[in-house]
């Protein structure tokens, strides 16, 4: 720690940071634009000028940019110095010369960093009355609006999009007063993280297009702290609601997980919540059709699903509470997993590795610390996008190391990048197709799924001879092994979504070999596909797979089943499910109609993630609490409520019961905030103190102001009254602090910049590591050596997740199901780019997608929104050209690096 003096007051600061960051860490207000807490400094905007003095004798001082000056021991600075203040006022005046001042019609208004900084700098009269520079805006796709006239050229957008997120299609163009930030021509922004531009841009150049067409000011949104349900990472989010509909999602800071950024699936994949197709009332089958259950008959209809012979099928997208309530209802023995058998097997292996003391499941922040990474078989960008963004930071550890050697501070962003050029920490990707991380990879091996497992095994064996023997003629094996051995913090990434248990086993062996060789705990990041796959799997007995449930049904051992928030047609082959559904009477609880609800005899509507308070367990085994944001306007209830005695019980007592009774869940109740910890026991309002129109918003229905709904379930209230999170962030939905209306106000809630939030916690790691394991022998299923092609499963960030794929915004970016294959295979099958292809000739039609880097003999199948019955496909398939076209969207929107052009 170093001591510095700011305006005559002594502060203890971290000398490795710059003055701006340390001023903000100390809670001081100092305006800035181009600096970002996790992108460092470039000194582009000149807004954070302060006076620095040589020593106590120096009365003159000199103006310096706080973001470009280290907070070194003994520094004496002044923020309040009149010259410094004058400089800041003039700088913002010049930045604002051509700003249109269109705040009333700008989506950023009310949460605009530029508004805040203008006020803070004291620039309140515009002297410039000449013609302003104007720009033409671009169409940037369904997610982002472009309004270049508002730009103040801070360069944050390209620094995030290109430098931080690795995008290639947004750039700074031209120079001086007509600098332009856009694409080389109109078109969809390709990066999976483009939505963060909305939050990174300090003004309204890049705004949320979906929100814009259904807009409300920040202060008019009802918000609560929530958790994204788009994948297994569990990024923290703040959804906002108004007039009964969910309007937008923004990032909510969590130092261990998402930090300042989320992916576009998480940001734009929510509007299924507002869908007109939502199930609104309990439905029962009457003369073959589903019809609304008359009042009074509901309870008796539900009661028919009780008894010892009723089985329950769990769901990886339902909360712990709903899954636990179902388990309580049907009993341990009758509670079955809701994922495919292959995924169940892989998940069980993941759970056993999660208990192994040789490994650590790294958080997203820890992934950024890795300095050598191997990915075995997972398409991280499409399966767990936020981790792909973290990996882009991990390869920069080499640059940071180089900078340290040259005495360049880490926050000197431009200098560190210039120094490193293309030097990166090693990242090896073993995959069956080219991925979106290939541009930063040091070693890329593209091969068939079985060969990938074999190569990974060879890497493990190379690291330690105790690992099962495997031989591969792949040249990079030795290099990959050496990189992992030599690294300070190696990281192995694998998971269940590759669909290959042997790849997972081989990856575990690499981690174990590293543990044996190095003697330290190894970061082993195991990805699963859905928000609560881990939570659900912890509640289910290992032998209670979905296959076992289907067998029980076909044996006639059970005639009744309760299916919790799950479309089983996504979990097993259609034929198997069809057979089972003929023999069983089903109660299905879900939010939206599905192929499964269509076969149910009773359907109960459940609330969406934003309409309920619930907990989820992410890929690390980290449990997190997500609060209810708004009420469901129809008759939907949280699934757990349908499954337990409806009259009594609340979410807190259910969480407490789950913590007591369920193995591994004993820390779950630590997530619950205690009302006593807040001021005078008052609740936390979901609405801001500026929330407008509450007395009038329902005046079209009734001129009498309705009573605000009461939430007796939660520490939050559906009103403006109560004590909002000020600097206490135990329950922090939308961050706001006096003079800081934008998301940059988060710095007021952090212990220090980029640190934890004050008084909050980052979730609870549930799984204890107290077991020791051993090497796994590879479960290589016999590969029937025929003419067929080996199948790898492909995913898309927009489309592979069941619920977000029902969102209109996401649908605009989705593609049809496709089968990716090599040019040689395409040629021998006489296929052209975009042809319709039948898979195994059993009615599954996909579009041929010829990719130059595919290995001959391997195809990658993307199933679309369950358009292809994946579980009916074997490990190898035969392809044949068909004339019937089943194109809905085509594959034009597909963003891959190796798509062959027509006539390859």
């Amino acid at each position, binding site marked *: 720690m170093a001591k510095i003096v700011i305006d005559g007051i002594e502060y203890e600061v971290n000398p490795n940071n710059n003055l701006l960051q340390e001023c903000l860490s100390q809670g001081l207000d100092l305006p800035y634009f181009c600096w970002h807490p996790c992108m460092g400094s470039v000194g582009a905007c000149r807004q954070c000028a302060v006076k620095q003095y040589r020593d106590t004798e120096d009365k003159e001082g000199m103006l310096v940019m706080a973001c470009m000056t280290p907070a070194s021991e003994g520094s004496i600075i002044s923020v309040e110095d009149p010259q410094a203040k004058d400089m800041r006022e003039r700088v913002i005046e010049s930045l604002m010369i051509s700003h249109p001042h269109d705040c009333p019609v700008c989506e950023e208004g009310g949460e605009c960093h530029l508004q805040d900084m203008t006020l803070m700098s004291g620039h309140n009269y515009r002297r410039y009355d000449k013609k302003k520079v104007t720009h033409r805006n671009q169409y940037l796709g369904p997610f982002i609006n472009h309004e270049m006239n508002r730009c103040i050229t801070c360069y944050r957008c390209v620094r995030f999009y290109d430098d931080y997120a690795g995008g*290639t*299609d*947004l*750039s*700074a*163009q*031209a*120079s001086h007063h007509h600098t*332009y930030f856009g*694409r*080389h*021509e109109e*078109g*969809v922004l*390709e990066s999976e993280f483009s939505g963060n531009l909305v939050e990174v841009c300090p003004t309204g150049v890049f705004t949320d297009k979906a929100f814009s067409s259904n807009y409300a000011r920040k202060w008019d949104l009802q918000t609560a702290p929530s958790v994204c349900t788009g994948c297994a990472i569990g990024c923290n989010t703040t959804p906002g609601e108004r007039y009964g509909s969910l309007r937008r999602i923004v990032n909510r800071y969590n130092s261990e997980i998402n930090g300042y950024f989320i992916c576009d699936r998480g940001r734009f994949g929510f509007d299924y919540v507002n869908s007109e197709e939502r199930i609104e009332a309990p439905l029962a089958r009457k003369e073959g059709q589903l019809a609304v259950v008359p009042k009074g008959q509901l309870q008796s209809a539900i009661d028919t699903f009780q008894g010892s012979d009723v089985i329950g099928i769990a769901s990886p997208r339902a909360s712990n509470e709903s899954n636990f309530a179902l388990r309580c209802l049907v009993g341990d023995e009758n509670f079955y997993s809701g994922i495919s058998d292959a995924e169940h097997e892989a998940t069980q292996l993941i759970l056993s590795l999660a208990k192994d003391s040789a490994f650590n499941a790294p958080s997203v922040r820890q992934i950024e610390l890795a300095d050598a990474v191997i990915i075995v078989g997972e398409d991280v960008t499409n399966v767990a996008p936020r981790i792909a963004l973290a990996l882009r930071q991990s390869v920069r550890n080499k640059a940071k190391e180089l900078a340290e050697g040259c005495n360049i501070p880490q926050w000197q962003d431009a200098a560190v990048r210039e120094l490193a*050029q*293309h030097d990166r920490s090693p990242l090896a990707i073993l995959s069956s197709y080219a991925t979106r991380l*290939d*541009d930063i990879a040091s070693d890329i091996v593209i091969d068939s799924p079985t060969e990938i497992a074999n190569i990974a095994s060879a890497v493990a064996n190379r690291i330690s001879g105790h690992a099962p023997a495997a031989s591969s003629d792949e040249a990079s094996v030795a290099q990959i092994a050496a990189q992992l051995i030599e690294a300070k913090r190696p990281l192995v990434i694998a998971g269940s979504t590759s669909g290959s248990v042997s790849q997972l086993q081989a990856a575990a062996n690499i981690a174990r070999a590293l543990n044996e060789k190095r003697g330290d705990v190894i970061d082993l990041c195991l990805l699963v596909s859905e928000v609560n796959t881990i939570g659900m799997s912890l509640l289910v007995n290992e032998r209670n797979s979905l296959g076992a449930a289907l067998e029980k049904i076909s044996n006639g051992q059970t005639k009744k089943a309760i299916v919790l928030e799950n479309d089983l047609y996504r979990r097993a082959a259609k034929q198997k499910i069809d057979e089972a559904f003929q023999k069983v009477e089903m109660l299905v609880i879900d939010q939206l109609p599905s192929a499964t609800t269509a076969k149910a005899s009773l359907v109960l509507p459940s609330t969406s993630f934003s309409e309920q308070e619930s907990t989820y367990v992410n890929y690390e085994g980290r449990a997190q609490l997500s609060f209810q944001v708004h009420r469901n306007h129809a008759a939907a209830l949280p699934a757990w409520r349908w499954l337990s005695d409806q009259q009594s019980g609340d979410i807190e007592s259910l969480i407490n019961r789950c913590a007591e009774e369920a193995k591994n869940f004993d820390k779950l109740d630590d997530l619950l905030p205690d009302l006593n910890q807040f001021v005078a026991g008052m609740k936390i309002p979901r609405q801001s103190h500026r929330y407008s129109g509450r007395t009038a918003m329902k005046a079209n229905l009734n001129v009498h102001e309705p009573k605000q709904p009461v939430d007796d379930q939660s520490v939050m209230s559906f009103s403006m009254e109560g004590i909002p999170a000020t600097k206490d962030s135990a329950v922090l939905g939308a961050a706001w602090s006096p003079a800081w209306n934008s998301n940059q106000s988060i710095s007021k809630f952090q212990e220090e910049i980029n640190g934890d939030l004050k008084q909050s916690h980052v979730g609870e790691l549930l799984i204890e590591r107290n077991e020791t394991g051993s090497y796994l022998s590879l479960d290589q299923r016999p590969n029937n050596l025929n003419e067929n092609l080996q199948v790898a499963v492909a995913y898309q960030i927009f489309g592979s997740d069941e619920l977000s794929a029902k969102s209109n915004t996401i649908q605009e970016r989705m593609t049809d199901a496709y089968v990716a294959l090599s040019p040689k295979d395409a040629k021998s099958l006489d296929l052209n780019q975009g042809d319709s292809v039948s898979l195994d000739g059993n009615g599954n039609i996909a579009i041929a997608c010829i990719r130059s880097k595919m290995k001959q003999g391997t195809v990658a199948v993307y199933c679309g929104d369950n358009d292809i019955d994946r579980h009916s496909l074997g490990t190898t398939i035969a392809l044949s050209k068909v004339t019937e076209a089943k194109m809905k969207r085509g594959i*034009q929107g*597909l*963003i891959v*690096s190796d*798509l062959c*052009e*027509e006539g390859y």
Partner: protein
Amino acid sequence: MQASVIASTATQARKLCAEEIKEIEHEMQLYPDKQAVGLEALKIVQKHQGWVSDESLLGISKFLDIPVSDLESVATFFNLVYRQPVGRNVILFCNSVSCWIMGSESMRSYINGKLDIDFGGTTDNGDFTFLPVPCLGDCDHAPVMMVGDDLHRNLTEGKVDEIFSEYKSKE
């Protein structure tokens, strides 16, 4: 870094001609990576084509395997990389302070009247494009301008007439 030319325009890329490729490949030997050759490639293409069209830009992006937006960033930064068609002869007319003192304003309006184009304009017959530049580094002979690769000093109305007729007669 890999170029990901979006599908909609990838097919519009112009195939660079053999001479362009030869010259670009020569430059590639002189630089550590392809990214650095971007500016040289733009200059080479402009030399051969007169200007850099969208199709040429995509062609260079494809040839060098660098993102087209990076290339556009460079192309638009430098005023003398022409992203619009220009006339056969480009007049670079100094409008900086020394030339201004020496009467460049009246010279500008003279050229304006004579060719019927102002800054940014190209004559209808495609002979001349008229552009301002901040300084040509020849202040002691102000006012000055360049036409094509030639520098013309101590401009007077008579001299301008002479210069233009000379370039016209060249064709």
